[in-house]
């Protein structure tokens, strides 16, 4: 159970000796290349604050995937329904990751609200940086997750309709061009994670055409009145870290990625 470094030396018949610093870096660079990592990521040291929502979700996803791999080897490929509807933070029950090679949780976003102090209709808009979605892979599913608290007392017993759109184009002299992605009906008193299927927006993420994605949320009552998303209980970036919204994209590499000789 020695590490790769010791084993590698032994099998190469090289007498046991510690690698020099430079050789060690070469071996590490070689393994990073096999792992498909251009260079060693240097995340800004995640602050010691309570774990954010995305890593918690991704860790549950990792355990689900690792369990599958452990049992069945590579043939195991399970279709994963893109989930909508209420779900707890851990991977929604019954869901397993699809045949994805890469799952990315996108947390870098800019938020803009049209709230009670603006003319109706109210909305919440979040713009995501998509540069982390692997360019050479086809997106097979994408979902947007936002936490909902109980709505303000004024809406206690009503039911709400939450619609999510992609902002296709912003126009200076008129309303933005919007593409409807998903709709959910729920009780105003409902609390928990909402999962919206935004896969349809990924059609034009390939290449570097679109490196950011704008999502806009509208909330309406049964009789069509616009509700301020904050009053409906939707938490944005100002919510606690463990309940901040994020996106998850599932993508699959092309069947035989050409390996460049190194």
């Amino acid at each position: 159970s020695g590490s790769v470094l010791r084993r590698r030396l032994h099998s190469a018949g090289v007498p046991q000796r510690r690698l020099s610093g430079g050789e060690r870096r070469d071996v590490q660079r070689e393994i990073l290349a096999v792992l498909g990592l251009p260079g060693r990521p240097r995340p800004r040291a995640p602050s010691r604050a309570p774990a954010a929502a995305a890593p918690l979700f991704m860790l549950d996803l990792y355990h689900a995937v690792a369990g599958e791999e452990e049992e069945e080897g590579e043939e195991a490929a399970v279709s994963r329904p893109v989930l909508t509807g209420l779900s707890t933070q851990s991977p929604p029950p019954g869901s397993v990751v699809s045949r994805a090679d890469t799952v990315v949780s996108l947390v870098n976003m800019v938020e803009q609200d049209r709230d009670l102090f603006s003319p109706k209709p109210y909305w919440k808009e979040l713009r995501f940086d998509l540069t982390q979605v692997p360019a050479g892979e086809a997106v097979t599913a994408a979902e947007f997750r936002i936490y909902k608290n109980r709505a303000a007392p004024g809406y206690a017993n009503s039911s709400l309709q939450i619609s999510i759109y992609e902002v296709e184009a912003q126009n200076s002299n008129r309303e933005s061009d919007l593409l409807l992605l998903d709709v959910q009906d729920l009780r105003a008193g409902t609390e928990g994670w909402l999962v919206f299927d935004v896969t349809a927006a990924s059609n034009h993420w390939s290449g570097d055409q679109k490196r950011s994605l704008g999502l806009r949320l509208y909330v309406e009552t049964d009789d069509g009145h616009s509700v301020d998303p904050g009053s409906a209980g939707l938490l944005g970036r100002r919510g606690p870290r463990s309940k901040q919204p994020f996106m998850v994209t599932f993508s699959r590499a092309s069947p035989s990625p050409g390996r460049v000789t190194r």
Partner: protein
Amino acid sequence: AARPPRRRQHKKSNELPHPNKLPGIFDDVHATEGRQVCRRHELYVSFQDLGWLDWVIAPQGYSAYYCEGECAFPLDSCMNATNHAILQSLVHLMKPEAVPKACCAPTKLSATSVLYYDSNNNVILKKHRNMVVKSCGCH
């Protein structure tokens, strides 16, 4: 025309002894005694040893395994050798200096997944195919 039946001679034992012990061309010039047969061996890749745990969230490392061992004739059925490997091993017995033995290599590989932070603090779950040896054989 049917030949007169031959008198049964005292039957000389003509069972070939185990092929590995045949004299002459079947002698394997490289003593294969003591060499292990082709099989899977433990190999643990430790991200901890590589000093990567500041950005790899999970796992701390994984069992990649590797294949090593002799593909010497006869290739026992448990070694899941390919037909070609069996043929190559036979030809190796006849011309060891011209044709090498078959090699011990993975016959089934599975994936492993790594969860890590990228430089923008996004969390990425990446599945790497063909990174874990599930079984070895002679090719």
